[in-house]
């Protein structure tokens, strides 16, 4: 279904994307305009054209024309001091499709895409009662996935989700999070060396890999999602059976994509738990 629909130009672009040839279907003016709107945030509610040009590394005359357009369309307003602010018309740009969703619901299409793409299973979880509870679980086409569902709980000490949660904690905070029940202590004693090794990788790459510790032959990458205060609020993960999801793909593609998703969720995660 996919290829017959592609016009000739699009097909050329698709192959061009893999080479050095620029994407000729990419509308740079639109992209830059969106980048300008994206410069504004709660921390940066107003900017001048000069400041925007500096932030984006785009020539000032281009920024001026784009801002002029955004003002005429009502998406930006200018005050007497030439400071620009986003206007309420920005709320027309799809905002209400997402504004009522929980963080897990926001993450869902991205997690499902990962699961589908890599014949894997993905999820988003919170730490609760010394364990990780899955707020959302998405499965791809593979039949061989762990028997977990939305709402399932997994171990803090041995699961990738648990590791993702522990990864940013100090050793003292980790001990406190794990608690002192005998069961937790025993499983942590067994898992800790592998966790500490995985943490090395986390420091380097920004995602933590649980290779067969939670379940033999099952490898998973996880990334913590921080709230506005910098604390881990959620953990997202994606994993699969080793023959379907080789370590090279997990490290080379899945981990970086999870990291991108975590960064994207971070700006919006703190509002709705």
């Amino acid at each position: 279904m996919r290829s017959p629909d592609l016009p000739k130009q699009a097909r050329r672009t698709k192959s061009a994307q893999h080479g050095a040839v620029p994407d000729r279907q990419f509308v740079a003016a639109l992209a830059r305009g969106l980048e300008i709107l994206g410069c504004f945030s709660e921390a940066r509610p107003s900017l001048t054209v000069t400041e925007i040009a500096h932030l984006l590394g785009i020539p000032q005359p281009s920024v001026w024309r784009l801002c002029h357009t955004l003002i005429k369309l009502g998406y930006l307003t200018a005050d007497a001091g030439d400071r620009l602010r986003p206007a309420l018309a920005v709320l027309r740009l799809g905002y209400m499709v997402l504004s009522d969703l929980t963080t897990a619901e926001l993450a869902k299409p991205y997690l499902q895409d990962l699961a589908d793409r890599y014949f894997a299973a993905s999820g988003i979880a919170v730490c609760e009662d010394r364990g990780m509870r899955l707020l959302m679980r998405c499965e791809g086409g593979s039949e061989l996935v762990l028997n977990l569902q939305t709402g399932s709980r997994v171990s803090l000490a041995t699961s990738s989700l648990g590791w993702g949660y522990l990864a940013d904690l100090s050793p003292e905070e980790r001990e406190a999070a794990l608690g002192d029940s005998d069961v937790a202590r025993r499983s942590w004693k067994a898992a800790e060396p592998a966790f500490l090794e995985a943490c090395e990788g986390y420091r380097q790459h920004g995602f933590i890999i649980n290779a067969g510790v939670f379940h033999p032959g099952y490898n998973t990458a996880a990334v913590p999602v921080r709230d506005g205060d910098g604390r881990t609020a959620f953990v997202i993960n994606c994993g699969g059976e080793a023959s379907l999801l080789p370590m090279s793909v997990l490290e080379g593609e899945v981990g970086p994509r999870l990291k991108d998703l975590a960064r994207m969720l971070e700006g919006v995660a703190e509002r709705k738990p």
Partner: protein
Amino acid sequence: MTDSVKPPRKRPAKAGAANGTRAARAAASVPERRESLLDDEAHQNDRQFVTALARGLEILSCFGPRKAEIGGTQLAAMTGLPQPTVWRLCHTLSKMGYLIPAEGDKLRPGIPVLKLGRAALACVPLAEKARARMQALADSTGSASGLAARDGGRIVFVQQCLSEAQLVMNLRVGTRLSLITSAAGWGLLAGFPEAEREKLIATHALPDPRWPQVEPAFREAMQDFAARGYILNIGVFHKSYNTAAVPIYGRDGLPAYALTCAGSSATHSPAFLRKVIVPELMKLAGELQADLRAFEAAASPPRRG
């Protein structure tokens, strides 16, 4: 996260039949013309105007709570843009993460649109400042309380607080309503000096086919406002929904926001609105006006000399 977007199909699978039903469906479910910023002739002579940007944003603005997922062909129909143009714009929006793939070759907005909206709302500090008190008003009277600002011929809610267990309108932060039929719109219009109000009516009301029907109730509400300082919208916005509204003025002396309090006509009779709701509403509006002045003064101190 996606690498490419599927281009819209050049023609529908069953051209004749599909067109017929689509047209019928469009006629039935889209009584109101889509707001479009594209067909403004003023832009055509503006050599500094970046059309590609305007068109791309027009595509994003097609998505809303009732239209969360849209296919390329439908986007072309909604915007009136040629399909190859729509395809290129969607490709760009997808690469930027503003659109993501959805079921059945459709597209839906991605997380970055949420960040844009939050940044815009952050420029309205009054909305957050007012929340707790609006919620208290809603809770104590079993109402819905809204704070809205004007965007052209529309009002946009920047805050909306609902009480539990009541029959409520589906109004949320970001909801856009007509300036001339909604209570918030009336609350704003009421606060303008008459000449400016008539100018706004000439621009936004006269072209609207609903206006002749609405006008008598609107005029009555404006008289009510002159005498009492608030307006009631009794069943005009929706036949079984009653609202009280008051303007909140900016430093320029013009109404910047309207504060509303509303409920179903079964619980919120005009008498209940006047006796119970309005005193609370006007008190809160006075407080919010003081808050607004403080924000305005902090944002740009008055110039000396």
